[in-house]
């Protein structure tokens, strides 16, 4: 029972350069960690249900009430956005899971085992952020496509649907996936900055949902200039079909949102290197 079966190691001849830590290996390790937690599946499933289910719900509702819509309501109706409306709720699930990717390890103490295994630390952050962003991108893009196609299928019964080939529509559908990907990235970065689940989630929600509302209170001469640069407002420019006054153009807006995410990640990297685990 108490024998070590592997080859003995003497301290005068320490381990040969067997397994060194590489970014690829850390990525593999983080992938194992990610897929072996139930919360990953449940949260992503929740995001998908929100994305697809809400879209289908709004489309069904619209299709059934279309006959009673007045001309003004009909003019306001936007089939692409109606089918994708669920992304607004899905972002919460994705932001929360992003935070948990990091804070789950702090809460359980796992982070110490992780950082002892990878003492250079940064590969862990890159792996977590990159992996989560990739997974969210796949899930959110597929989810958006399904939500869109399902929604348009429902709307087509009243001939009020649209198609991916209509101008700007593909950009919005894939844009929803990209927006959610950056939300995930922001979640990971904020999780690493705050290191506490409740605080991290509150910060993500505050940044995405509360800050834009607070800034509405500014006098409109300011608000018109400032608000378009707020993270979620900037990012959501990409998920908007028709350009409105005082919003950034789609790709400018998305780039600004991405920069927020990357700056937060850079800050997280700096602190991860410096702080005690």
């Amino acid at each position, binding site marked *: 029972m108490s024998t070590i*079966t592997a080859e003995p190691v003497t*301290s005068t001849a320490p*381990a040969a350069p067997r397994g*060194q830590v590489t970014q690829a290996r850390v990525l593999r390790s983080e992938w194992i*960690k990610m897929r*072996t937690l139930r919360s990953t599946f449940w949260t992503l499933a929740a995001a998908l249900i929100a994305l697809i289910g809400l879209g289908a719900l709004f489309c069904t509702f619209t299709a059934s009430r279309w006959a009673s819509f007045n001309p003004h309501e009909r003019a306001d109706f936007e089939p692409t956005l109606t089918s994708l409306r669920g992304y607004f709720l899905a972002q919460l699930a994705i932001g929360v899971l992003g935070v948990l990717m990091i804070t*789950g390890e702090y809460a359980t*103490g796992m982070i*110490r085992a992780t*950082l002892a295994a990878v003492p250079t630390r940064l590969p862990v952050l890159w792996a977590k952020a990159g992996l989560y962003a990739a997974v969210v991108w796949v899930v959110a893009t597929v989810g958006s496509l399904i939500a869109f196609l399902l929604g348009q299928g429902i709307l087509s019964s009243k001939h009020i649907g649209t198609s991916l080939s209509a101008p700007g529509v593909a950009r919005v559908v894939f844009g929803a996936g990209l927006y959610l990907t950056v939300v995930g990235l922001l979640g990971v970065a904020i999780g690493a900055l705050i290191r506490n689940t409740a605080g991290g989630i509150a910060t993500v929600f505050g940044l995405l949902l509360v800050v834009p509302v607070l800034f509405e209170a500014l006098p409109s001469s300011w608000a018109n200039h400032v608000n378009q640069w707020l993270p979620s407002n900037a990012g959501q420019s990409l998920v908007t079909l028709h350009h409105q006054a005082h919003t950034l153009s789609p790709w400018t807006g998305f780039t600004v949102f991405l920069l927020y995410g990357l700056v937060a990640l850079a800050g997280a990297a700096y602190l991860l290197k410096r702080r005690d685990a």
Partner: protein
Amino acid sequence: MIEAHALSKRYGERAAVTDLSFTVRPGVVTGFLGPNGAGKSTTMRMILGLDAPTSGSVTVNGKAYARHRAPLHEVGAMLEARAIHTGRTAYNHLLALAATTGIPQRRVDEVIEIVGLREAARKRVGGFSLGMGQRLGIASALLGDPATLVLDEPVNGLDPEGILWIRNLLKDLAAQGRTVLLSSHLMSEMSLTAEHLIVIGRGRLIADTSVAEFVRGAAGGSVRVRTEEADRLRTLLAGPDVSVASAERSVLEVSGLTSDRIGRIAADAGIALAELTPQLASLEEAFMELTRDAVEFQAPAREPALAKEGQAA
């Protein structure tokens, strides 16, 4: 080999470790002792590069831990309070750690076998008992087949069988030429497991000595011997630094000789011993004596209560 040079750590105003220098050598189990809050866990975190020293340095095999390219093969660690995500199974926990340095799955199965967790390996860690958690911690430490082991209170929460198991495991690992450092509050446990002792209190070094020496120096440290030929043994044991007391006819309380030495003398003379017991309570007392001024959290009626506990142990 772990070498600490003038290691200090402050958390804000609080000095957790102060000017600590010591060397942990390969080939023997080294016990790291100190009362609660002495700075043992802090020192171990600094060894593993998890906490940065405020000043001073600590190296493992000549290099700061973080500079080793294959850290899991260099040092296996088990930290305080289970550094394990409760939502994952034991097997997946080990698999994820192993992946960081490309340790094969075969080795994961191996360490699970070594620590006797085969039945529980596919269960989520959240439902583990304290002892199972400790075993998983030890499995993590063994993953990379490291030349150095750093274990923070590995015996905590283990049942007697588990304690015996870990004691033998650690001795075997040291006998293979590895460096083994383990922390504890219990002198009696250390005297059975460790050969060398580093004692700290309030973050400062109090003693760096072999267990044998500590035992010899322990105030009133004595060995209880029971034999039918008590009188004959008594004369054989007599010496300038040796005192022998006798409460019953067949029982001797010997001070100034180790149990090893007494056993050898008896064997050479062909005397059969019915009992040969180092008096552990006195070891515990010696430890408390040593760290008395350095105890962080002192209960008012400390001594009577603890002395009784020591006797019972």
